[in-house]
């Protein structure tokens, strides 16, 4: 339990008012059109969506998760957080391609890239899944706040969940994405400052870097300082093959769209940037900040380990970073720390409320129910969808218990079977809607079978997560590759239109040649002038 002084309450109230008012101030911009309500009119300079990328992916549950993996694995745990590196290549590959498509959402992109019934089914599927997924994320992030408030103040979990998500909904409902991104900028600055402050404070509390290393040596735990302390090629709790799998997933995944669950919020930020260049830099810079943040946290958690090396319970050591702040910061700064936690929380909640609503509005309501709806009506549908997502998130939040388990499942397993198809849809012209749709359906079945059902009935042993990934990728390919070849390619006119607009990379030769024959593109030999 933490006891707040006057100064603590002062910081907290001031920051909450500032964050909510900052968002609400953009009410007039947000209500102008659907493009404003969901994409801030596609006019943002790179640093605004970059701050939003950073703020969104710093959630209340993120330090809990990072604390868990670093306390357990030492600095090797950094690589669990390195999945965000998919943005390294994505910023200059799939981001560019997606920004050129101008699709509001990933679901809409499916109907620009594919055609016919398959494309429509994909759009409906991804839109519905994203509405569900955003509600799910809101629930798990929300309940993390509930757990934290119970830990700090002894509140029942539902109170922390409902109170802060509702506060956030005030500016998301009024100003839409304008409110989200403007509040994100302010929240990102507060959160990053406090993460630096608390992490350095924690390192100092453990006696500084030298003392941390000496204490780890005395405890016989110096391996924790080595990010490359593998337990073997395939054996132990941190095998090299896991590391290689993670690098492949993260880095190569950047060529695709939807290879990581974070792609979907990033897609919204990409479209809100004013140019392709701004979109690329926003994704790159936001993720660079995330990587720096993770390393800051990692060293702070090592410091915590030297202070409390004997904690066995996962739920207890997952609170490591929070404990550094609440146990070691002086009175007055504790409220500042909690205000930053609220900032971290609101930035994530706001994004997922608005993102889920964008799929419900653009891809479900407008696309299937009322294509000719006015902008005013669509903004209102966006608000109603936001409210429904908020209510749904309360329900999901109260159903979840083990945060780490859900997170690892979502990050790793849920994406395994669609990782390769999500790349193929970008880089291979022949991959069609039926292939992609079948990969989704196959993945849903395979992930549950391989992770839970078959091991439960002892048909197969419980496999390490990297093996689960490769197995699901291979089994999935055995389903969607034949389906792709057994069904006709996409309509060539649609492919040409998509190619001319988006200029994808990879195997697009037949489409490129067709576009050249139609005079829509220059041939390779045609002089284009310029040079360098």
């Amino acid at each position, binding site marked *: 339990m933490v006891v707040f002084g006057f100064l603590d309450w002062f910081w907290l109230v001031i920051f909450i008012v500032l964050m909510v008012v900052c968002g609400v101030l953009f009410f007039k911009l947000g209500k102008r059109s659907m493009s404003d309500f969901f994409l801030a009119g596609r006019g943002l300079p790179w640093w605004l969506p970059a701050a939003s990328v950073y703020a969104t992916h710093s959630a209340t549950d993120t330090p809990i998760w990072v604390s868990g993996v670093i306390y357990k694995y030492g600095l090797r745990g950094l690589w669990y957080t390195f999945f965000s590196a998919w943005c390294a290549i994505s*910023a200059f590959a799939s981001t560019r391609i997606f920004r050129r498509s101008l699709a509001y959402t990933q679901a809409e992109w499916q109907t620009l890239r594919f055609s016919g019934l398959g494309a429509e089914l994909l759009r409906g599927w991804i839109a519905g899944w994203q509405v569900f997924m955003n509600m799910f994320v809101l629930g798990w992030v929300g309940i993390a706040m509930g757990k934290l408030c119970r830990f700090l103040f002894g509140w029942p979990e539902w109170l922390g969940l409902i109170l802060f998500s509702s506060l956030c909904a005030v500016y998301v409902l009024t100003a839409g994405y304008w409110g989200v991104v403007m509040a994100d900028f302010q929240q990102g600055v507060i959160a990053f400052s406090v993460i630096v402050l608390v992490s350095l404070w924690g390192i100092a509390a453990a006696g500084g870097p030298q003392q941390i290393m000496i204490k780890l040596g005395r405890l016989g735990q110096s391996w924790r300082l080595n990010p490359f302390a593998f337990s073997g090629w395939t054996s132990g709790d941190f095998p090299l093959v896991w590391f290689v799998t993670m690098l492949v997933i993260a880095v190569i995944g950047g060529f695709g769209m939807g290879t990581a669950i974070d792609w979907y919020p990033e897609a919204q930020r990409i479209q809100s940037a004013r140019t392709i*260049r701004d979109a690329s830099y926003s994704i790159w810079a936001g993720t660079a900040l995330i*990587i720096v943040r993770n390393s800051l946290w990692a060293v702070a958690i090592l410091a915590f380990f030297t202070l409390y090396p004997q904690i066995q319970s996962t739920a207890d050591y997952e609170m490591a970073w929070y404990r550094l702040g609440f146990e070691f910061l002086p009175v007055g700064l504790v409220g500042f720390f909690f205000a930053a936690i609220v900032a971290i929380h609101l930035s994530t909640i706001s994004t997922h409320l608005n993102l889920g609503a964008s799929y419900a509005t653009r891809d479900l309501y407008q696309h299937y129910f009322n294509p000719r709806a006015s902008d005013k009506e669509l903004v209102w549908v966006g608000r109603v969808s936001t409210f429904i997502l908020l209510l749904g998130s309360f329900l999901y939040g109260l159903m979840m218990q083990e945060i780490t388990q859900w997170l690892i499942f979502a990050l790793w397993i849920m994406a395994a079977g669609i990782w390769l198809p999500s790349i193929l849809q970008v880089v291979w012209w022949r991959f069609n809607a039926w292939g992609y749709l079948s990969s989704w359906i196959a993945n849903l079945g395979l992930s549950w079978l391989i992770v839970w059902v078959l091991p439960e009935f002892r048909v197969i042993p419980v496999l390490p997560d990297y093996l689960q990934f490769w197995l699901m990728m291979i089994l999935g390919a055995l389903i969607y590759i034949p389906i792709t070849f057994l069904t006709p390619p996409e309509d060539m006119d649609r492919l040409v239109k998509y190619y001319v607009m988006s200029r994808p990379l990879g195997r697009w030769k037949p489409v490129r040649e067709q576009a050249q024959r139609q005079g829509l593109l220059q041939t390779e030999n045609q002089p284009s002038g310029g040079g360098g």
Partner: protein
Amino acid sequence: MGWIRKNWTAADADRWTKEDYLTFILSPLIYFLLAVGVAMSLLLLWYGWVLLGVSVILLVIMIKIIDPKLKAISEDYEVKQKEYLEDLEKIARWED
């Protein structure tokens, strides 16, 4: 760095070239060095500072390589964007 192309025509910039492929290599490498470099620097280990320094140098090189091309792509595309957006709205309203 004379081998880095600074002037791009719209048509050339739209093609995937060696500048893009170099960026695909440099960008994850920078993230990797940044992750390890920051952690090691916080522990005041000398090689942490070296890794951090290398990541900053590579970042500058990467921007020098890709920025002229990104500028050319963006400038050309923004001219066409209005027309593309109108087209997209027609599709959204089932008019196309």
